[in-house]
């Protein structure tokens, strides 16, 4: 029941993830970080089978880092998403597939005007570019809310407002306390991290 949300704004992408680690009936941790940076201008949020998630995220992170060091060139968010998709698509037909769903938010700084994008990728290797996205049960609540309130030309402040609206809805409708949302803001300047959405 982890929550991961992504919203694409006019010149940035927001990624919000729940801070709770839950096992059975217990909440084991209230300060978890379900994201990894894939480069200077992109981040990936992940949910799924515990163990698989961090293992997969750091595997992808390390391989993309290796590529950027070898080639002295950072892949575009689109290329990163394509790489992650292929890893998951090959994994699903293996003996023990990674059960990981991810969102990738990034800013392509090699375009003449920096271009932000958000990718929704599931454990089957389904990859789509979306204006706003979520995985799991949270998607049912958050997406209908975003369908109503989303506009493509929102700025960072308005985007945060929208996330707070999602947070409020999820807090009232989700059956367990997910311990708030951690937020990453990705734009042409890089990735900014905020420990809690409510503090913004």
């Amino acid at each position: 029941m982890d929550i991961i949300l992504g919203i694409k704004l006019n010149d940035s992408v927001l990624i919000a993830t729940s801070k709770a680690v839950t096992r059975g009936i217990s909440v084991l941790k209230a300060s978890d970080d379900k994201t990894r940076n894939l480069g200077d201008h992109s981040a990936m949020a992940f949910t799924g089978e515990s163990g698989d998630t961090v293992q997969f995220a750091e595997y992808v992170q390390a391989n993309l880092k290796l590529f950027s060091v070898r080639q002295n060139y950072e892949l575009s968010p689109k290329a990163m998403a394509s790489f992650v998709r292929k890893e998951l698509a090959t994994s699903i037909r293996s003996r023990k597939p990674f059960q990981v769903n991810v969102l990738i938010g990034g800013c392509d700084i090699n375009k003449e005007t920096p271009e932000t994008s958000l990718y929704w990728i599931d454990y089957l290797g389904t990859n789509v570019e979306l204006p706003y996205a979520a995985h799991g049960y949270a998607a049912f609540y958050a997406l209908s809310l975003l369908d109503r309130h989303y506009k493509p030309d929102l700025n960072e402040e308005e985007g945060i407002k929208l996330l707070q609206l999602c947070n409020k809805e999820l807090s009232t409708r989700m059956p367990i306390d997910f311990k708030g949302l951690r937020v990453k803001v990705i734009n042409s300047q890089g990735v900014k991290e905020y420990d809690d959405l409510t503090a913004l």
Partner: protein
Amino acid sequence: MSDPSSINGGAAVAMVGKDCVAIACDLRLGNQSLGVANNFEKIFNYDHTFLALTGLASDVTTLSEVFRLKTNLYKMREERSIEPETFANLVSSTLYQKRFGPYFIGPLVAGINSLTGKPFVCGFDLIGCIDYAKDFVVSGTATDQLYGMCESLYEPGLGPDDLFETISQAFLSAVDRDALSGWGAVVYVITKDKVTKRLLKTRQD
């Protein structure tokens, strides 16, 4: 419920007209009942040969990339684009290579042979058995509805404009009776020297 070919939903159809062919697909990508994206096109073209892929979205992407690779290699070796008939055999053998662990897709091929000028459409099952047709082929989660609509609306020898009207009406009516398909549609009308792509306005439920 967890049948791979109906997790994401989607539908496609191709029809033959007089010196033209048309191919259409919807734009929905879902996760069971939840609609995720309304910009997921299922038609790909390799020069003048068109391929529609319905079924498991992951395999749709994978195969569209596999065929991009194979048609590019073909083009370099042969110094010409692949013809629809040849491409159909390429699809068939590529799918049969995965006979005991198949891709969960339902492909359609449409195009006009650039040498003979003959319109060509065909469909496949997931392991590559070719279904040659002289009228129309259908695929996806709205297969039953599409057969019904095509059987009643289709007539042979239609020109490009009439063929567009026929395929669009058949496709829209079929897709509106399927919960897993719809959310927008695209229609390609292909003649010997022109390809027209049209986006259809559809119900958004």
